[in-house]
């Protein structure tokens, strides 16, 4: 066949759909360097590409670009970022759970402390009721007639011990505590325990048997927080036992 006869076949040749005999004709022309056929094939390739390119346009999904670029090592594949995100979320979750756990522990410790405080107050109140309701309790008052002193009562009981209830008692201050003393009729003052005031009231109980006939008075001094073996300051409260 001549080049003129082949000119209508270049597009189909370029598409790879030409029948075997016609394809062989063009192959032969190209093989011997036929300029017209080479030009015809180049035009056909451009024509075919244009015809393909004017079809309806569709948008590929964004993942396709990532997948393609990941395949040549340009971008991380989608699952990598998914993994990073999942790991970040898990780390954040672990940190959050740790914080929650710490908060719960702190709350639990606070609750225990409050419970101990309430339990202590309840025990004191029970003890106070026992003191006040027992006929053997001997009351003594202090602070009356003085200018702006702590005022209150001391209750003495031969088996229950000593209970001191003071009002108008200021807070002891940082590093300080009130210390109660049993002043015997003879001998040195005996330590009878440390206590604090809430700024208004103070309640302290020395539990245990006490020889009331040997007690001269109950006194309170301001001492270091750890207490002292003997009074180091002038007594704030002195309540005579009889």
């Amino acid at each position: 066949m001549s080049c003129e006869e082949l000119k209508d076949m270049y597009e189909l040749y370029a598409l790879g759909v030409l029948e075997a005999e016609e394809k062989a004709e063009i192959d032969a022309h190209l093989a011997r360097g036929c300029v017209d056929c080479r030009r015809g094939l180049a035009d056909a390739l451009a024509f075919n590409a244009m015809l393909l390119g004017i079809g309806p346009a569709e948008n590929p999904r964004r993942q396709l670009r990532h997948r393609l670029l990941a395949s040549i090592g340009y971008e991380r594949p989608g699952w990598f970022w998914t993994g990073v995100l999942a790991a970040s979320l898990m780390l954040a979750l672990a940190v959050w759970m740790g914080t929650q756990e710490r908060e719960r522990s702190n709350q639990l410790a606070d609750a225990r402390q409050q419970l101990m405080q309430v339990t202590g107050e309840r025990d004191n109140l029970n003890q106070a009721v026992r003191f006040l309701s027992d006929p053997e309790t001997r009351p003594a008052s202090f602070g009356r007639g003085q200018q702006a002193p702590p005022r209150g009562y001391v209750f003495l009981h031969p088996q229950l011990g000593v209970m001191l209830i003071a009002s108008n008692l200021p807070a002891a201050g940082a590093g300080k505590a009130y210390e109660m003393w049993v002043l015997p009729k003879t001998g040195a003052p005996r330590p009878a325990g440390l206590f604090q005031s809430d700024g208004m009231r103070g309640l302290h109980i020395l539990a245990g048997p006490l020889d009331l006939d040997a007690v001269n008075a109950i006194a309170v001094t301001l001492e270091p927080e750890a207490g002292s073996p003997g009074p180091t300051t002038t007594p704030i409260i002195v309540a005579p036992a009889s």
Partner: protein
Amino acid sequence: MRLLKLIPAVLVYALLQVALRRDDDADLVRRLKAHEPKAMADLYKRCGRLAYSVILRIVRNVGVAEDLTQETFLRVWNRVGSFHAERGALTPWVLTVARNRAIDHVRSQDGRMEASAVDLDRLERPGLFMDLEASALTIDRARRLKSALEKLNANQRTVIELAYYEGMSHTEMAERLKQPLGTVKTWTRTALQILRTELTEAAIA
């Protein structure tokens, strides 16, 4: 409503305007040859949508179209070494590879033309895409071609569709359409002549 109908055509032309520019081809080809990953991103930006559209129209399956689009670009990436940076036409090459990969897939699914894979491979060699006339790749000619397609009668459009998007030979078309081989050849030849004439007139104008 007429305005709405124009929107797809405007999009196609705008897409072609981006895709068919040749000024940047040489630089892009040089970077592709150097296997600069950014060049692949640029190539995909330029031709990805076109290649995917061609492939999807042929295989009609999104997942398969994505696989074949990836295969197309990797094939270009691996074979660009023998592409001529100054005289080569990049977009026609990518579109040809895309169409051939899709046709090869459809043919293998149909179990027909087993030897054709070699032919398709031969027809997308980079060396063939040299010295394609720049005038063949203008927006105006693309518009003319689209308009010319609408002038074809139903039979002519059908054979063009079967050749370009189903990869059928004349014999296969004749069997599919239950028409004499000579009739199908005439439809095809006439259709291509009409399209070519429109393009030639556009080039002269």
